[in-house]
C-alpha cells in the first residue's frame, strides 16, 4: 500500500483504537486531500483462538466458550453451537424449550440493534442518541438477566433444552417493557426522520446495491437494506420460527439511513414475535424424554459425523461447521461469523468517499470485531 504514493497523498491509520470502531482493528487509509483513495484492514488484535480452544474442550464446556465469540449476541452463538450438536445427537428440544429460546433470542436481537443504533448515532456526532437507546437496552438486558442470571454471557442453552424455566412474573414484566419500547422506537424513528443534520450525514452515503452486496457476501441488515429479503429465519427455519408470523424487513435505498431504518423495523418485528410467543408458549418438559443425553451428563460422547447449521444473528448469517469423531470433544469447529464478510466489504465501500463518511459507513454496519477475530 505504501508503494506508488503520489506527492499529494498520505497514509493515515484509523485504529486499532478509534472512537468509530466497535473493537480493535486497524484501517489504513490512503488519502488525497480528504478523499479516500485506498483502504486496507488489519485484523488480529483480539484474536482469541476460539476454534482451537473448542477442539480442546468438551461439548458442555464449549457452550461457555462460544458465548465469548461476540458478547453482544451470546445467545445466538449458543443457539448455533447447540443446534449443531443437537443435529449430531439427533435430538430436538421440546416445544416449551423452543419457545423460551425464541423469546430470549429475540430479546437479544432487540438489545443488539438498540446498541447498534445508539453507537451509530454516537459515531456521526448524535451523542444523545446513545443515551436514549442504552436506557431502553438496560430494560431488555434486565429481562434476560431475570431468566439467565447474567447480562451478557449466559451459558443458558443446554443440549436438548434450556437450563432453567421462565421465572414467575416474566410475562407481565416483559409486556410492560415491550410496551414502553414500542413508544421509544417510534420516538427514535421520529428523531432520525426529522433531524436535518442526521439526514445529511446518512442519506445517500455508503450506498450498496443489491448486486454488489451479494457479490461481496454481505448478509443481515446491510443486505436487507438493499432490498434482498434474505433471512435465515424464513429461508431455513429453525426452532419454532416456521409457526410464527413475521415479515422480513427490507428497504431499497441501501444507504446508511436505510440500514438504520431496517434495524428499527426489525425491533418492531421482534416485539411482535415476542408477543406471539408469550401468548402461545405451551406447558411441558424442558428436556426431551427417553434420550440418553440429559443436562446432568458431564461427559457426553457425540456420534461421528459432520453438520453445518445456520441461524440468523442480529448482524446476519451465523453458521457453524462441526466435525465429530465420536469422542467427547469436537474434532473441528469452524465459526462463520456474520460480521467477518461485512468487514471485508468495508474497503471497497469507502473508496471514493471522504474521511468523515468513513465513520458513518463503518458504524452503520453495526460491527463486532470480537466476532470477526474470534
Amino acid at each position, binding site marked *: 500500500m505504501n508503494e506508488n504514493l503520489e506527492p499529494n497523498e498520505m497514509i493515515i491509520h484509523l485504529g486499532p483504537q478509534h472512537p468509530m470502531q466497535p473493537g480493535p482493528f486497524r484501517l489504513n487509509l490512503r488519502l488525497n486531500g480528504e478523499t479516500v483513495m485506498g483502504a486496507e484492514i488489519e*485484523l*488480529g488484535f483480539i*484474536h482469541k*483462538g476460539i*476454534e*482451537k*480452544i473448542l477442539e*480442546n*474442550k468438551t461439548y458442555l464446556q464449549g457452550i461457555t466458550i462460544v458465548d465469548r465469540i461476540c458478547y453482544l449476541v451470546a445467545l445466538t452463538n449458543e443457539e448455533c453451537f447447540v443446534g449443531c450438536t443437537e443435529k449430531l445427537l439427533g435430538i430436538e428440544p421440546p416445544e416449551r424449550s423452543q419457545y423460551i429460546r425464541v423469546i430470549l433470542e429475540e430479546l437479544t436481537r432487540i438489545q443488539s440493534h438498540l446498541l447498534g443504533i445508539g453507537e451509530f448515532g454516537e459515531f456521526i456526532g448524535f451523542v444523545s442518541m446513545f443515551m436514549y437507546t442504552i436506557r431502553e437496552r438496560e430494560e431488555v438486558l434486565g429481562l434476560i438477566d431475570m431468566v439467565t442470571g447474567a447480562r451478557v454471557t449466559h451459558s443458558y442453552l443446554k443440549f436438548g433444552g434450556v437450563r432453567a424455566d421462565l421465572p414467575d412474573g416474566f410475562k407481565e414484566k416483559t409486556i410492560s417493557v415491550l410496551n414502553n419500547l414500542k413508544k421509544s422506537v417510534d420516538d427514535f424513528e421520529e428523531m432520525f426522520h426529522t433531524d436535518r443534520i442526521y439526514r445529511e450525514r446518512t442519506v445517500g452515503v455508503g450506498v450498496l446495491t443489491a448486486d454488489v452486496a*451479494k*457479490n*461481496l*457476501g454481505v*448478509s443481515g441488515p446491510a443486505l436487507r437494506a438493499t432490498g*434482498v429479503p*434474505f433471512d435465515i429465519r424464513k*429461508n*431455513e427455519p429453525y426452532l419454532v420460527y416456521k409457526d410464527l408470523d413475521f415479515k422480513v424487513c427490507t428497504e431499497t435505498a441501501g444507504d446508511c439511513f436505510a440500514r438504520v431504518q431496517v434495524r428499527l423495523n426489525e425491533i418492531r418485528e421482534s416485539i411482535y414475535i415476542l408477543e406471539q410467543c408469550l401468548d402461545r408458549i405451551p406447558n411441558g418438559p424442558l428436556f426431551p424424554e427417553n434420550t440418553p443425553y440429559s443436562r446432568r451428563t458431564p461427559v457426553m460422547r457425540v456420534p461421528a459425523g*459432520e453438520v*453445518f447449521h*445456520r441461524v440468523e444473528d442480529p448482524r446476519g*448469517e451465523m*453458521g457453524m*461447521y462441526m*466435525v465429530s469423531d465420536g469422542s467427547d470433544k469436537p*474434532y*473441528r469447529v*469452524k465459526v*462463520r461469523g456474520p460480521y*467477518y*464478510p461485512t468487514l*471485508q*466489504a468495508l474497503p471497497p465501500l469507502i473508496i471514493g468517499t471522504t474521511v468523515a463518511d468513513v465513520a458513518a459507513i463503518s458504524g452503520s454496519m453495526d460491527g463486532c470485531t470480537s466476532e470477526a*477475530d*474470534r
Partner: protein
Amino acid sequence: MDVTEILKSLTDTFPEVISEATAESGIRARAYVDREKAREVCQYLKDSLQFDHLCSVCGVDYIKRNELEVVYHIASYNHPVVLMLKAVLPRENPEIESAVPVYWNANWYERETYELFGIMFKNHPNLKPLILPEDMLGEWPLRKDYKGFPNATARNLV
C-alpha cells in the same frame, strides 16, 4: 431447486471430477471435488445453479489419514440448499487453486486457512497473514500436531 436436481446436474457436467455426491437432507448436500478443478466447479455452481453466496472456506486436518481437506460451504440467496464441497489435499505441500476470481469474499477465508493450516492458494491476490502475527507463520496452529497450544498461545486459559 431441489437437492437431487442440483447433484444430478453437477455429476452430469463433471463426471470425472465430482465423487461421492450425496444429499444429507432436503437442504444439505455434500460432494468431493478433484482439487485441480475446484475453481471450475465453483464457477459452474455460481453461473448455472444459482449458488451465488459463499458461506465459508475452511480447512480440516485429518492427521490419521495424513490428509487435509478444504471445505467450501456454498449457499444461495434464492434457494435454501447448502452444498458442502470438499477437496482432499496431502499434508505435505498442500496446494489448491484460489476461488477468489469466482467468489470475492473467499479472499479473507483463504488467507485465514493459509495461516492456520498452511494450505497454499494458488493465484490468490494477497496471500499474507490476516489474524495471526507474522512470526507465527509456518507453525500452522490449527493442525492437530501443533505443539504450542495451550502454552505458547493461550496461557492461563486451559
